[in-house]
């Protein structure tokens, strides 16, 4: 199938190096300590963070660090065909783990020993790149909860189809069977915290695809920073200082 036309347009009208429209909102779950909604095109996720709070299961308590837990779920209505998915299936367990590890890397857990941080992410609408969207949402929610972090983590996916590196795959491109690289970076520290790839790529094409994904992550980081800044300004305004 032709995913990039000879005119250089993808199926949805983007060019290969373009991301989908992104949108974010902070404070969507009033009850949580921090929360955020993040959209990448038609992919829409909500993240809620609770903590740092007391460790619920004492046996898991860590004396030097905070315990970070993460739960990823997909709403039953998130895909076109509505079906009931069992909780804790392989895929969501894996994504939960990935998000937990990625976020744990940037949280200064040593500042909060014997405490627990819960991150809940839920996909409301899925159209490819849910992993990336979840990480971005989780970052915003953690920032909203005021949890100390080394840097923000931002994520973006890139793929390789029709011999062209493509940024931010949507569902059709994702399910085309080509390579899909999901990357998470800490833009200020210039460090990679997450790198996943399914299918194979030769080393030089991988470099290109990876570079493209890094560009994407940086673009997301700029946007997230903007949102956080605006949010802070609003808080400042509300406080009246």
């Amino acid at each position, binding site marked *: 199938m032709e995913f990039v*036309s*000879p*005119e250089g*347009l993808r*199926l*949805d*009208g*983007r060019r290969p190096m*373009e991301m*989908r*429209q992104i949108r974010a909102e902070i404070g969507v779950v009033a009850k949580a300590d921090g929360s955020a909604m993040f959209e990448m*095109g*038609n992919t829409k996720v909500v993240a809620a963070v609770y903590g740092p709070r007391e460790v619920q299961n004492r046996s898991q308590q860590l004396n030097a660090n905070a315990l970070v837990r993460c739960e990823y779920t997909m709403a039953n209505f998130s895909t*076109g*065909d509505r079906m009931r998915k069992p909780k804790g299936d392989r895929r969501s367990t894996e994504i939960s783990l990935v998000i937990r590890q990625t976020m744990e890397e940037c949280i200064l857990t040593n500042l909060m020993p014997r405490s627990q941080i819960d991150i809940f992410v839920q996909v409301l609408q899925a*159209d490819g790149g849910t992993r990336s969207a979840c990480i971005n949402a989780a970052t915003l929610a953690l920032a909203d909860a005021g949890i100390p972090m080394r840097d923000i983590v931002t994520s973006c996916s890139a793929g390789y189809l029709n011999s062209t590196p493509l940024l931010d795959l*949507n569902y*059709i491109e994702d399910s085309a069977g080509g390579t899909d690289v999901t990357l998470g970076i800490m833009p200020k520290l210039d460090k990679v915290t997450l790198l996943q790839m399914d299918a*194979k*790529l*030769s*080393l030089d*094409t991988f470099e290109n695809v990876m570079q493209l994904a890094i560009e994407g992550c940086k673009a997301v980081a700029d946007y997230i920073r903007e949102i956080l800044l605006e949010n802070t300004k609003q808080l400042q305004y509300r406080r009246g200082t």
Partner: protein
Amino acid sequence: MLQNRSYVKRTRGGKITKVVREHYLRHDIYCGAPVCKVCDTSQARLSATASTVLILDTNVVLNQIDLIENPAIDDVVVLSIVLEEVKNRNLSVYNRLRALCSNSLRKFFVFSNEHHKDTYVTDMSGESKNDRNDRAIRVAAQWYQTHLAGSVRILLLTNDKENKRKALEEGISAETVESYVRSLSRPDLLDLLVHPASSEDVIMEEVEDLRPSKKKIVYSEHKPLSEITSGIRCGIYHQGKLRVNRYNPFEAYVGSQSLSDEIIIYGRANMNRAFDGDIVAVQLLPQEQWHEEKSLAIADEENEEEEGVHLVPGSADDVPRTTAQPQDSAGETCSASSRPSGRIVGIIKRNWHSYCGSLEPMAKPAGSGGVAHALFVSKDCRIPKIRIQTRQLENLLDKRIIVAVDSWDCLSRYPSGHYVRTIGQIGDKDTETEVVLIENDINTRPFSTQVLACLPPLPWSVSSADLANSVREDLRQLRVFSVDPPGCKDIDDALHCTALPNGNYEVGVHIADVTNFVLPGTPLDDEASQRGTSVYLVDRRIDMLPKPLTEDICSLRADVERLAFSVIWEMTSEAEIISTRYTKSVIKSSAALSYVEAQARMDDSRLTDPVTTDLRNMNTLAKIMRSRRIERGALTLASAEVRFQIDTETHDPLDIGMYQIREANQMVEEFMLAANVSVAEKILKHYPLCSLLRRHPTPTREMLEPLLRTAAAVGLNLDISSSKALADSLDHAVGDDPYFNKLIRILATRCMTQAVYFCSGELSPPEYLHYGLAAPLYTHFTSPIRRYADVIVHRLLAASLGIHRLPTVFQDGPQLNSIAENLNYRHRNAQMASRASVELHTLIFFRTRPTDAEARIVRIRSNGFFVFVPQFGIEGPVYLTPRGEKGSGEWFVDEQQQKIRKMDGSISYSVLQTVRIHLEIVEPQPNRPKLELKLL
């Protein structure tokens, strides 16, 4: 720049789901006209001086693609919605349109109207998909008109009346294709026009008065698609691809997945307007009709079969399948009555393309310039005659032309089509050669500039960097030489043989290092992989790689340093391989010998120079290897290859002779086989799943049936239980004359299928077997200049030695498979083309030289027999009863003994008997020369 809108509903798999897709509308899509002042003109394709820019409607593209391909139609804007619709309707037209759009000589511009912010149209409620797309086309045309206001005229070409009316209402200038072509005042273009069904009806009515019988229904109506799909689902109909018998257009086969056996379709009425290669729906006939149909078909066959003189078939693939035999049934013989036969009820997908041929001879029309109807006869006899309309009949009568099919309704006996272009005079050598090339889908276009840009600059020589490269061994001091046919310019293999102090020999096969210049993923590589192989015609060679590579840079010529890929063995004097080494190398050939020269040197006992000694040593080794191979059961098959002596000025053939095989040929062949086998082992060891190998399937009993029958008739008993047994019994088949054995071998060869390339991941190891060579593994490594398969194998070998990384294609199973498929297809076409070329030259040769010759009877028919003329390598029918005179009853065929006998018993002919015949060119119809064989 990003605007997010649009959603689409889609159904799939019976369930209805709502699918939401993003659709971005853009500001940065430009109009493509260089005169435009607003848009970015760097990507503009339209010409600056164009007075009219055409916008095509989908129906115009679908029906008139031949016209659009004509250079007279230019400055066209192709809308993306049109492209999309065409893609969904007809992929081959889409590919042709895409080729036009990417051709830099043509001024076709693709305008992505669906993603342009001003030309995107949202669906209106109650509007059909078609109406919406028509509206989108009009909106885009409107946009162009206002955008380029004044500077150029925008013209919408549409054959849809409604669309045209609406366009005119909206103030867009629109015309039908016909009126536009008429306004160009080019009568030759009018021939290219496909007449839409409505105007066809008018013509039919005019004709009706003259030939009222024409109006009757010839074929049964095709079933509607909905009925076909439901019929296939519940098992009444079977879906499959129709394959028409190459030698009998009234017999066809459909291989269906829902039925284990192939379904036979007899006769045009049952074929119901289907063409070869169409995907069809078949209904089985009731069982009691199966046998009856069969016998009817034989009578039919003998009536109609056009049996000309042909070259001797090279393998089973070229032989007419007289006894219908399933290719995959494992051994058990099934009688004709148990073979399901059926009739076609509908055509799911047409395989129409354009065909080469000529018009059926007819009286020249009285008045010239008017529209005339003519029947077109394709060169490929599987294709029925095609009715065309032309205004230039007198020009076309003696020409080879290309015709495309447009439609075939059930009222007409023949499909109707239109003229595409003229190739040239019938019988002219260049024209006929071109026909051969077109028929076999061989690309003869010169290499594009992108491809040529991949070549290293000339004059090229081995650089110090090549010598310094650690993976490249310096073998320049070795006494390397090459042995090839005389006049060979693309030398891709060379040999060396050195006696070692321990009494063993070091033998090396050095193959041109083509992959050093053809890098994966470059345009050069893509082109080569498309072409697949070089094609050798009698007077011409069509290269796979550009000439500088084939004849200079890669060719292992004498006394120049060249890059090579070498396989080096250490062998004992008993030709046992002790060790094998593979390396890239630099060599300097000391002599480029021809087979004749090499043979002469070996035979001349006075010569004791080093090269001759090497040759003799190698020959000794080769003989041992050969005998060992034959012991393993390799078949020595014979072919009746012929050589022409060509006049250097007129390029007409002067003489034909059998190709003589010398010991030197066999020697070189032996080492090439050994190298191929060694390489096959190496690459398979490293890449068990993605190696490209070559296999030769074991022939089934049915395939060898004709050979057995013939052999039995002359009292010979062949054992076909294994290749070894067959090889032995072939060796023992010695008749009273010296040619007998060769004849039997030729007959055996044509019972075999051809060897094919395949990807090792596709089959299980026992299936890798090469039957003819009795080798469990085989591949092609030794001719990378002229075969792409060898290029792939070179890359695999280089990767297995750690020299290069394996290109990414090899990780993609389906793609590798499609490459192998393409190679098989190209390889086969190349062979067919060479055979056709030889046939053509035989015809030219006999044109001025009626000859008498000795021939052998190979097949008995009810009204004559087929003879094989060894001297010229041709085969053809000899009629005992004049053609057309049916059921003379004078001759009687004895199937068992393969004899044809005169009723009174005075004369009888049996198979393999020698007869003398007279060969002469006759012209039963003007411009249709034919070689006729007559008994003396």
